[in-house]
Structure formats: structure tokens, C-alpha cells
């Protein structure tokens, strides 16, 4: 039983895909840059290319950090749900198999935050 209840208790998820007006949620975190207190939650169209997300969306999200301008995106390492993941910037979220509420992390091994403090 999924819950202690006095009678049948079944509801749909409050955050199911169809509630987001054609977008899906993508969570994205930048490891060792905890000046951003938490990973981010972005509503994005499934037909958006990853490359466009990096070029057009991420600067507004992470651009405040002095390390952001120094990122060499060809060397960035990606994780999906904590497992190594191959990014292809030309593919869309749907083509990359990224589902609603998937979580990506990216790592920039030479860049470790303010004074190397992971901030």
C-alpha cells in the first residue's frame, strides 16, 4: 500500500508532464559551484537542441559566476542521474532521450569555484 488511508487513495502526480503546457522539466546542476545554492529547474520544449540550451539559456542561469565564461564546453563531463552521459549538442532533448524531470549534472574539472572552494 502506497499510503495509510481509510479508503482507496489514488491520485495523479501533481507534476505530470501534461501540466507544463508543452514543456518538460529539466534539472541541471554545475558541480563544485555551490554559489548557486541548488541545481536549477528549467521548463523547456522537448524539441530544443542541447546546444541552444547551453548557448541561450545557461548564460542567464550561471553567467554570474566568473568561471562560467572560462568553460570549454568540449571538455565538459556530463552525468545523467549520476551516471556518465554522452552529450550531443546538435540533438534535441527528445532525441537525446531526456525525459520529463531528468537531472543532468556537468563537471568542469579545471574550474572549482571561487578560490577553489567549490563555491
Amino acid at each position, binding site marked *: 500500500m*502506497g*499510503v*495509510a*488511508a*481509510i479508503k482507496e*487513495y*489514488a*491520485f*495523479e*502526480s*501533481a*507534476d*505530470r508532464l501534461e*501540466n*507544463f*503546457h508543452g*514543456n518538460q*522539466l529539466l*534539472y541541471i*546542476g554545475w*558541480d*563544485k559551484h*555551490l*554559489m*548557486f*545554492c*541548488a*541545481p*536549477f*529547474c*528549467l*521548463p523547456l520544449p522537448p524539441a530544443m537542441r542541447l546546444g541552444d540550451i547551453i548557448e541561450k539559456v545557461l548564460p*542567464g*542561469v550561471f553567467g*554570474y559566476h566568473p568561471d562560467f565564461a572560462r568553460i570549454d564546453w568540449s571538455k565538459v563531463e556530463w552525468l545523467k*542521474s*549520476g551516471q556518465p552521459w554522452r552529450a550531443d549538442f546538435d540533438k534535441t532533448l527528445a532525441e537525446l532521450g531526456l*525525459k*520529463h*524531470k*531528468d*537531472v543532468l*549534472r556537468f563537471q568542469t574539472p579545471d574550474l572549482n*569555484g*571561487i*578560490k577553489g*572552494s*567549490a*563555491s
Partner: protein
Amino acid sequence: MDMKVSKKKLGLKEKYQHMTRGLGWETTYQSMDEVFPYAKYEGIKIHDWDKWEDPFRLTMDAYWKYQAEKERKLYAIIDAYAQNNGHLSVTDARYINAVKLFLNGISPLEYMAHRGFAHAGRQFPGVGPRVACLMQSLDEIRHAQTQIHSLSNYNKYYNGFHEYRHMLERVWYLSVPRSFFDDAITAGPFEFMVAIGFSFEYVLTNLLFVPFVSGAAYNGDMGTMTFGFSAQSDEARHMTLGLEVIKFILEQDPDNLPIVQQWIDKWTWRGYRVLTLVGMMMDYMLPKRIMSWKEAWEVYFEENGGALFKDLARYGIRPPKWLDQIEQDKDHISHQAWATFYNYAAACNFHTWIPTDDEMDWLSQKYPNSFDKYYRPRLEYWREEAKKGNRFYNKTLPMLCQTCQIPMIFTEPGDPTQICYREVDYKGNKYHFCSDGCKEIFEHEPEKYIQSWLPVHQIYQGNCFNEGVDPTAEGFDPLAAVLDYYHLNFGRDNLDFEGSEDQKNFDAWRGMATKNT
């Protein structure tokens, strides 16, 4: 000579008997199961409600008399505080933000506790606990009222106090305390009593009230201090009730043990997560500090709580789960929380700021293993940027934990440089968690938590704009629309303390009170 003289007055014991136990009866027109429909579904087995020992033999008439006396004293002090412009005697205006946090985040919980205890009191078939719950229910609504009355004085002069009731159900960070209590009152009466009566009121309450009340005393806030002390005599009764509940349930049937243990694990963790706000308040928001969050945790949880769980071991209860993680986290969570409010200061109904150099030194000294290494660099960087007119306001919404609803700010046990990510697939959807504790709580009752009203997701679904607002209109400003929906006044309630209206007004008024020009 041996005629019986009927006594005019009942003895204390008889009176107590008549006015508590004597008020109950076995129903016959309707079955007891119909009258008390929530008494059994949680799986708790009670064989003899008369075994309930009332921790304080208080009857309603005595309760009224005693509380009325206390209330008179409290209001005399509150009035004097207001009439003498007591708000100008606090250490500095930053302190007032701790009071805002209390009014917005804690006082509504007192009201919810009132509702919860009224509900539990209605649903228990046993008279003893029903009367005890009734009194606690009244205590809780009195606490909500006296807090609101005391703090309404600040609302005359400072921003961020004006819409606590409206904001509780809307503002992103308030979903943390709110969902905590909603989780408790939507549980059955037994779980509610273990959640709030025991885990919160008994195990964790000192970590809530002592910091706020002592913080008020240390920072010259007589009004807040007084309602704290007034509530304290009730708290002692609540703690005793919380402990009695646990012992009673465990003594009734051995099958109750695993259910109660799971609730203790869950609610200690849930409560601990909510207390992150208190930790932040202690370490960052009190101009005159009382003790660090870490020290408070060591005294009030590790020492006092440790003794409690030793005492409960004879019932088969072990200490709550995840204490090893909490032990490591105590060096970090207050800093992580303050950084979060600093990030999202534009969407918040109190101000944040960078600690002064002295305050940073205090933090270094209290947190030798963590502050200088992990947290000072980001605070100093932010300070430098703010000086250049580039104060950091994070404008992208964060990922939240499905259970505690706190942004995913907490780090891996043992690695303060790495955010802790946990996830579960349930019926075709993914759910994310800040910790093993929150993940396990979800897994135990997924159907409950898949309905969580997560503020970030609700904003993206378009549910956090006022009626008539068109998010597809050209030039639509989502932040402004959300703040409107919150009833949060941009530029007054939010942003940095430096340059705020509160700061300017306080300085001007205190100047008038202490200088001749």
C-alpha cells in the same frame, strides 16, 4: 451521629475524575467504530484506554483560570512594550528579520497545531487523551494569537509582516514549514501525536523556542521574549503529553513498536529539516548571538535527546535513523541555508545581508572545520560584487526536494563540495530528494507525496499568477507576476538589508529617540 453528611465540594481527585474520565461513554445508537472512524486504520492496537495516565491532572475550569491569569500579565507587558517604542531598543534592525521569519514561518504552525490537536482529540476513543488534546489545542491557538498580537506591533513600522496568512500558502520557502504540518494533520490521529506531540514538541521543541526566545532576550526584544516565556509553561505540559503518548501506545501492544519507530524516524528527520531555518537564524540573523546552531544541536539534541532515547530503549525504541548524517551536517546546514536566502532575496519577505567581518570571525571560530574552507570565500566574493553594484540575485528557480520541499541545497554526507542527489521512479514519473531520509519517507507513502505542491513546479504550471494575468503577453515579467501573487512589495519587503526601507527608518527613528538633531 453516624448520619452521612454530603460534601458540598468535590475533592480534587473526585472532581478530576468527574470532569475528565466521567465525560466519556460507550456509544450504543452508533457503533464506537462509526463514531471514531480513524481509530484503527493506522494499525495501532489499543486494548485499554483507561490505562492512559494523565500527566497533569488539570480540569477545564482550572485551565481557564490559570491561563487567564497568565494572559493578563502577558498583555500588560506587550502594551508597555508597544507604548514605549520597544522596537527601537533592539540591537539593530537586522534582528527584526528574525522576527519576520518567526511570524511567517512559525506562528501559522501554532494555528495548525491547534487544528491538529482538536482533530486528534475528537478522534481518540479514550477520554484521557481526548481531554489532554483539547487543552493542548487551546494552548496552540492561544500561542498563535499572542504571537500575532505581540508581533503586530512590528507591522506598524516594518515591512514583511503584513500578509503572513496569505503568504503561508504561496511563498516558496514557506511551503517548507507548511507542508511539514500539512503532512502531520493529514495523517491519522496516532501518527499526528507521534509527529507533533512527541517528535516535534518533545524531541525538537527546545531547538525551536530556546533560540528564538533567548535570541529575543539577547537582542532587546522584550515583546517576543515575553510571549516565549508565557508559552513555556504550556510547553512543559506538551512535552509531558508527547512522552506519555509514546509510552502508552508502546505499552498497549507489541505490534505497535515498528509503526511507532517508523514515525519517530520520519518525524525526527522532517522536523530536523524544518529546523534548518532556525539554524540559519541563530548563525546569521541575530546581531547578538546566543550560541551557534551546532552548539544548540549538541546540547538540546545530542545530550538531552540521547538521554531520552536511552530511556525509551526499554520499550524497544532505538534512536532515530540518519543521526550519523545529521552529525556531519551540523557544520554546514546553517551556512547553506543562509546562502539560499541570499540567492533568492528578490523573492523573499525578509532581508538578507553579508555578515560583518566580526561576525565572519565568530562563524570561523564556531565552525573551524567548515566556515573558512567552504563558506567564507563565497560570502566575501558576494560582498566584493555587491560593492561594485553587482549584488547577486539568483533569478532561476531551483530544484526542490519532493518531501521536505527545501531547494536541493544539502551536500553529500562526508563531501561538502557535492550536492546530494537522490531519485526514485514511481509509476512512470521521476521524483528527486535531498537526502536518504527524504527519499525513504517518500518510498514509504509515495501516493501522499506525489501530490506535493512544489512552489517551483506550480509557478511553471502557471498556477502562481493572479487571475487575469496572461503569461503569454509580450513583455510578461514572471518574477513580478509571482511577487504580485505573493502580495510581496518589490523593493520594500525583499532584496538586501543594505539600503532597505527598514534600515533607513530604524536609523532615523532611533536617531530621534537618542539624539537631539
